[in-house]
C-alpha cells in the first residue's frame, strides 16, 4: 500500500511508531517474504527432481 508522503504523521496512529520507522519496516518485509517463498519453491523443485530421477526413472521405461 502506498504511503502518504504529504502527511508525515500518517504513520503515527497514536501507537508511537513514526513514519520513518514504518517505511524502514515496509522496505524489509518483502525481502523476508521472497526469502520464504524462494526456499519453499526451491525445496519443491528439488523434491520433484529427486522423485523423478530416483523413483520414476529407475522404475523402467514405459511406452
Amino acid at each position, binding site marked *: 500500500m502506498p504511503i502518504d508522503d504529504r502527511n508525515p504523521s500518517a504513520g503515527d496512529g497514536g501507537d508511537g511508531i513514526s513514519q520513518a520507522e514504518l517505511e524502514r519496516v515496509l522496505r524489509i518485509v*518483502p525481502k523476508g517474504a521472497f526469502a520464504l517463498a524462494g526456499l519453499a519453491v526451491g525445496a519443491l523443485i528439488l523434491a520433484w527432481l529427486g522423485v523423478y530421477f530416483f523413483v520414476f526413472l529407475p*522404475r523402467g521405461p514405459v511406452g
Partner: protein
Amino acid sequence: MSDEREILKMELRWATIAGAAVAVIAGVIVLSSFAMAIHPPSHVETIDPATLGQSGEFAEANLGARVNPDGSVTVRMIAAQYAFVPRCIPVPQGRPVTFRITSPDVIHGFIVAGTNANTMVLPGYVSEVRTVFQEAGDRLMPCDEFCGLGHGAMWSLVRVLPQSEWKSDENGRASCEIPH
C-alpha cells in the same frame, strides 16, 4: 512511487524465477522422454469384446507370455470380473516386454507394482504397454480401477525371472506357478 517501482521490480524477478522453475521441470521431462523413449501408453486398437476368448489373438490357448523372434516377449491377457487370465505371468529381466490386454465386460486397471507399467483396460479396445523390468522378483499386479464387488480380489502376479532362470518351450511359450 519509488516503493511501487521497487515492488514491481521484485515481482518481475520472482516471475522470472517461477518461469525458470517451470522451464527446468519441462526441460527435464522433454529431454529424458526423448532420450529414453518414455511416453504414456497411447496405443489405440479396437476389438470385439463379445468374441474375445473364442478365437483370434485373445483365445484362451493364446494367452500368457510368448517370446518373439527378436527375443522380446509379448504377454496377452484378459482382464474380466474378477480375475486376470492368466493369474501368473513370467517375464525375463532386462528384455523388452509388451503387454497386450483387453476386457470383455467393464473397465479394469492394469498396474505392475513398483514399475511405471500402468494403463486402463477398456472393453472394445486393446491396451498395450511396453516396458523393461530391471529387477528380478515377484510383482503384484492388482486391478486399480474399481470394477465391481469382487474388485479387491482381482489381482495377478508378474514373475520377473533372471536370464539364467528364464525358459520357454519350443513354441516360445512360458508359464509359471502361483506360490501357495
